């Protein structure tokens, strides 16, 4: 539908690393007992993945699921697949005290490729060294002055999620941090 526009509509910039707003992404906030069988079934039904351990992200056939807090997960699906994922999870969690909320439109998603660690480490107080932050790691932290959650992909690129209203700020932050001449050559 032409009415649908993500926060920055696939804005891109490139310096020594490249930055891209990746467009609409399905995202679901799930709260409940992460250790319960029902939760495992719900996450499996929505993504094909298992419930992640603390500070991890698990990937499955139809999506991914990230650990947000001791009672909160972030389920990531295609934008179109959100409604069916929510339905499937609600069915699995029937009778359990839980919450399943669509937050796809409340967020913006960015991808940083190239020497991504050096860009990320300018903005987030996180140890991004390869020994400390491997693919599958997930952090809720901040980028300069705003909240963000971030993870590393198998190809070494980073993806991160921020609130939709701060998308331009985050894009500007990432772009200036990845601008040419700013190579730190410490982490990547």
């Amino acid at each position: 539908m032409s009415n649908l526009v993500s926060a920055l509509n696939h804005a891109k910039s490139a310096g020594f690393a490249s930055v891209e707003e990746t467009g609409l992404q399905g995202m679901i906030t799930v709260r409940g007992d992460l250790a319960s069988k029902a939760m495992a079934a719900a996450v499996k039904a929505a993504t094909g993945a298992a419930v992640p351990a603390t500070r991890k992200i698990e990937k499955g056939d139809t999506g991914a699921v990230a650990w947000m807090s001791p009672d909160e997960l972030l389920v990531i699906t295609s934008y179109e697949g959100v409604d069916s994922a929510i339905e499937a999870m609600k069915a699995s969690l029937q009778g359990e005290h839980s919450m399943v909320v669509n937050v796809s439109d409340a967020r913006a998603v960015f991808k940083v490729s190239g020497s991504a660690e050096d860009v990320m480490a300018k903005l987030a107080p996180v140890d991004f060294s390869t020994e400390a932050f491997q693919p599958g790691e997930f952090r809720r932290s901040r980028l300069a002055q705003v909240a963000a959650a971030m993870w590393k992909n198998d190809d070494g690129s980073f993806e991160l999620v921020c609130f939709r209203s701060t998308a331009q700020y985050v894009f500007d932050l990432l772009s200036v941090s990845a601008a040419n001449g700013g190579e730190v050559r410490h982490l990547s």
Partner: protein
Amino acid sequence: MSTRLASGGRLLNKGKAVEFTFNGKRLQGYEGDTLASALLANDQMMVGRSFKYHRPRGIVASGAEEPNALFNMGEGSKFEPNQRATTTELFHGLTCASQNHWPSLEFDVGVVNNYAARFLPAGFYYKTFMAPRAAWKHVFEPIVRQSAGLGKAPKDRDADRYEHFYAFFDVVVVGGGIAGLIAAKAAGASGAKVLLMEQTAHWGGRTPVDGGEIDGVAVEDFIASLVNELKAMGNVTMRNRMMGAGVYDHGYVLGYERVADHTPNAVGPRHRMWRIRASQIVTATGAIERPLSFAGNDVPGVMLAAAVRDYVMDYGVSIGDRTVVVTNNDDAYRTAIALKNSGLEVPVILDARASGGGALADEARALGIRVENGKGIAKVKGGKRVTGVAICAQAGEGSTLEEIKCDAVAMSGGWSPVVHLWSHCGGKLIWDDAQAHFRPDASCAPTNQNGEGFVVPAGTANGPLGLNAVLADAVKAGESAAKAAGFTPKSVAAPQGVASDEAAMEPVWLMPQGAGPKLRMKAWLDYQNDVKVSDVRLAAQEGYESVEHTKRYTTLGMATDQGKLSNINGLATLAGQLNAPIPAVGTTTFRPPYHPVSFGAIAGEARAETFQPVRDTPISGWHSENNAFFEPVGHWRRPYCFPRNGESHAEAVKREINQTRNSLGMLDASTLGKLVVSGPDAGKFLDMLYTNMMSTLKVGKCRYGLMCSENGFLIDDGVVARIDEETFLCHTTTGGAERIHGWMEEWLQTEWWDWKVYVANVTEQYAQVAVVGPNARKVLEKLGGMDVSKEALAFMEWKDGKLGDFDARAYRISFSGELSYEIAVPASQGRAFWDALLEAGAEFDVMPYGTEALHVMRAEKGFIMIGDETDGTVIPQDLNMQWAISKKKEDYLGKRAQERSFMASADRWKLVGLETLDGAVIPDGAYIPAAGENANGQRNVQGRITSTYYSPTMDRGIAMALVHRGPDRMGEVLDIPTLDGTVLKAKIVDQVFYDKDGEKQNV
């Protein structure tokens, strides 16, 4: 004169000349020069005027401790004052100018202060400016302002880019001299992750200047292979041009990397602030030579002995043809030897020690240099340049024994370890009698979260000054840091240097020791702030016994060099005057940064577009394109109004209100907070949070509610919609979303953790548009889809459905008093929905309105606004909102507080409306005085204005106010004084000015 020698200069690339400009003169240096060495090579010995007396001052040092050579650097958007010549690498096109003189460096009017020095003693300002009072404003302040400050303030926006970088290490070694290199190797060998930083561009520090051998090879070669070894270690990171600026709690270190100061036209950031977490920190920060206090020790040409040596060896620059060396230790002999070996004259070495020096003294004598033991300088001759010295006995009072012509003096009063970083976080010092210096007390290290030391000093920074002792100490420091960081050090034998047999130094705090007042008045302790031996003595006489008080009274150590040269000499002088041992006097506090850092580096990326996050709604783009005048609301930017065709803001607001009341307006309400509260106990939870009953709300209905703090004060308001049996959607104010979300989580996590409730903040999931006015229903019907008739969607109801192509949730709520719908659509459909409404509304001449129209319309209806009618001291009862407070509920947050006697009192200020008798608008924030005065002689007050506007609907000023017993005084006329002295008369009326019965919104 100072000049470039034909040979020498190990740091120079003489194949590459570099041009620069000083005070408009074009000069030349070489690649590898510092600005200081290049100026000296051009015989520019005098570099500035002193702060207070405007005395000519020359370069004294070769490193970060330099007090005098500060310049206004660069031009326009690259201008920066107070840049130190000794730490500035020369680059092609560098432009600098000297500071603190008028009209010129050579001829300065302010120097009259020098002749009046007798009248400008310590504490001059404190004594002089006490009386008469009026003199401060008219006489003293203008003079002080004229003479204050060294550099100029930049006028243009900084053209450069800055950034931060977060890094994590097991061991951080600060200082890339011989001790730092060896400590880094020792720590790195254990497998620990090590960062080694060095503030200059070179590794190895001062050791190569003094030459010699380590492990049988020349020092320079030893360092080169050590650097290569470290570079090859995968777990060791080396960064030069990076200074350890400060050490903080929990192993936090700031590293100030000057990425491009030496290449100002390169693309990229100028400075990078490394924000480092380290398990252990090794401070291999070296030592600083102390000046000697003799009369005229500030005349250009008097320099630290080691600096004279540095300039010869590192930069091939001689300070003068004839250099007198004056010392209380053996190290300065190295300077004499280096000068002699470079073909320069050393007429005499004055050794203040009666017993003289050791092996180095013998070496000097063997080179034919005259050595005088037990002698010192009575006085330096010359004004803008040293012309000679008068020699005296150190033990005497300064009678001249002999005058010797010279054009430079190399002085050494001993060495003080750089203990700043050790001390920043609480490391204690002990006084070393043998070396006459403070050094780190290993038994009182700064401690981490486990109560264990996390800073390890290494090399000369730890006290030892001899090469072999330094090497051994550095190995030990590196190993113990690695061990404390949880690694197993590999025991390595310390490298061995060639030891030289040095005689003990002798402390000399005044030269000659019996110098009288006249000489003391010209013996400088602090060059940059013009503090002399006589000033510190005077301070002690006047009762300033604490070193911290003396510092502030005399300004000793308070300039941009923070007393790197003056601290120890100053406190030794104070101790002498107080007749107390030096350790009993103690030191002033060492505070970060070690050396000034740029504001840009502190700000990092936070400038221009990224200064602060600005939050945008999905519709913000339209607002910008349509001439919105924005106002900040939290981090959001909201349109205040949309001026058209040169309208004033007031005219725009009036037009927007009239059009909304008469036909159709729309408002971007996306910023309103939206919190989903869900679970079996959600109703019970909301009954506790809101003053009114929410659990009884029917699915599909909306209810306005108030939230109070546990102290009873109103903190937020908004409409709650019941989505299903277990789920509510709570609207908050724009600024309240995050705060109220946190408030809910706090109660759920700390008090009612067993209640089955979850909360999620979905504020940004939706774009929300208020469609307002008599034609609101018609425009929605035009879009088509859900039934929005009065029957299908009554006032204070909500419904999900389609409006045109859009997934919509429609709330029938009104903050304006008109027929009104708030429509929420998913944020990614927001802009398209807004555009569709504009198109459909065109036939009704729809007008978007801003926050000011929103405010005026709600005030016309007498609705309160959090932050206007409330200020953290207002309870709902003050606002006559008893109707929104449940009497059936056993409890809610704030209930008990509101029952306290003074909260329940009838004597509180309560909300009323005000109408001026002449229709004028009351100024915002006005007070309503009462008769008489209070105990402080101030006018009594009986109320204040909370909201005041011109109402286009009423065509007159309207206001709301909190007034003492206001609702009991309807019809009374109050006097409201304004700032221009006139008094407005306003009548107390009902706060609802427009459509009290709600007929317009309920159609």
